[in-house]
């Protein structure tokens, strides 16, 4: 793998992660904010399953750290959640890649749930406990968005 071949891979990954970070903090009305999909999770998991040898847990961890800073959570919260989600995605990628897009979202549902659960858990430990059912809405919106976003991100890869 030469350095020249490597550069074009990192460009779409960086741009899409940056876009996901922006979408995660863009101001939304309260009703919409509750169902805001986990954009960074979606993008990181997509690259994990598409280029598993290139985009691994390091990208997940660094994106998570930036997300922590941007959303004002305790440093390491999103980093931990994204690392674990990315680990799950890397384990599932060989299976997931055989599915059509609309089934991939469902196959990755456990990964999304783990991500949201880790956030929920750390929020509880650090004294921001909330338990309404709406807390799980991002899992649903991320899953529903996968069949739309995955083909769009695939265009970036070419």
């Amino acid at each position, binding site marked *: 793998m030469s350095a020249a071949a490597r550069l074009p891979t990192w460009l779409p990954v960086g741009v899409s992660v940056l876009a996901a970070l922006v979408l995660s903090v863009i*101001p939304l009305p309260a009703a919409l*904010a509750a169902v805001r999909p986990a954009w960074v999770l979606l993008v990181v998991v997509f690259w994990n399953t598409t280029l598993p040898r290139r985009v691994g847990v390091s990208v997940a961890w660094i994106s998570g750290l*930036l997300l922590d800073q941007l959303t004002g959570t*305790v440093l*390491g919260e999103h*980093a931990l959640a994204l*690392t674990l989600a990315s*680990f799950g995605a890397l384990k599932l990628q060989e299976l997931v890649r055989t599915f059509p897009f609309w089934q991939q979202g469902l196959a990755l549902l456990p990964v999304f749930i783990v991500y949201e659960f880790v956030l929920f858990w750390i929020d509880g430990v650090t004294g921001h406990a909330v338990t309404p059912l709406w807390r799980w809405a991002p899992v649903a919106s991320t899953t529903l968005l996968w069949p739309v976003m995955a083909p769009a991100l695939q265009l970036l890869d070419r």
Partner: protein
Amino acid sequence: MAKFGDGDVKPLFSKAPPLSLKVLVFVVLSLALMFMDQRLDNLQTMRLALSAIAQPVRWIADFPQSLSSLGDYFESREQLRVENRALRRQQLVLRAKVERLQSLQAENRRIRALLQSAEALKQRVLIAGVLAASPDPYRHYIMLNKGSLDGVYAGQPLIDSHGVMGQVTQVGLMSSVANLITDPNYGVPVEINRDGLQTIAEGGGDGQLRLPYLPTNADIRTGDRLVTSGLGGRYPAGYPVGTVTNVKHKAGQYFLSVRAKPSAHLHQGREVLLVWNDAAGGAGSAAKSPDTPTPAPLSAKP
């Protein structure tokens, strides 16, 4: 399908460290960071560096709002004239009020001097713009466009023209995060304007305030105004905090259940005032003194 040729396929003999090891390292790193950030609170430099990296993202996220404010240029002339006239009238009324206030202030100063009170009357303030409200509906904080470069410090009180909004909890280079008084983890020492009864107002988590530590015989009524008492040294005394909306005594309870509505317009407006609480420790250095460097919340839980 060149894609599969250049690196997508798992090599037979990989020299990279195994995935589970990497995951373990990152998990331990995250846990260590969380512990240091939450318990030891010694990650200020790392937060500064991260906030510098994250700043462009915030600018981009804020861009649509700057665009919408461009629309203000195209307000119709008639509308501006009507507004102008109304503002002129208002200014006249306000000026009269200010003149009265000035005389009152002078009188107040004289009386205070008589009392030999050392309270500072002039307060240093800084206007900060609100960059964003919490993207998470379950947390009550806002981000401001002023940071340590402007002298903002952790624990600094935040007000708008109607009352106390909250306090700064994290400071970046050019931005900072401030908790609102409605956050359930924070409390404000208040007193009731009518009779001087002192207590603590906690965030209710639902945009309201609670006063959980009032005994059942406390003299408090619906409509009472709450102002900061200045105790605890974080908030300057005398700023409006809220109005009591509901006083209830449940049979068998030792404390009243009192709710209040915040005076500050917490989710409106794009500008807030950062106040230097000189009265607490004198000469503006109070905030930078070594005993208050952390954003430790005014812990209301006894």
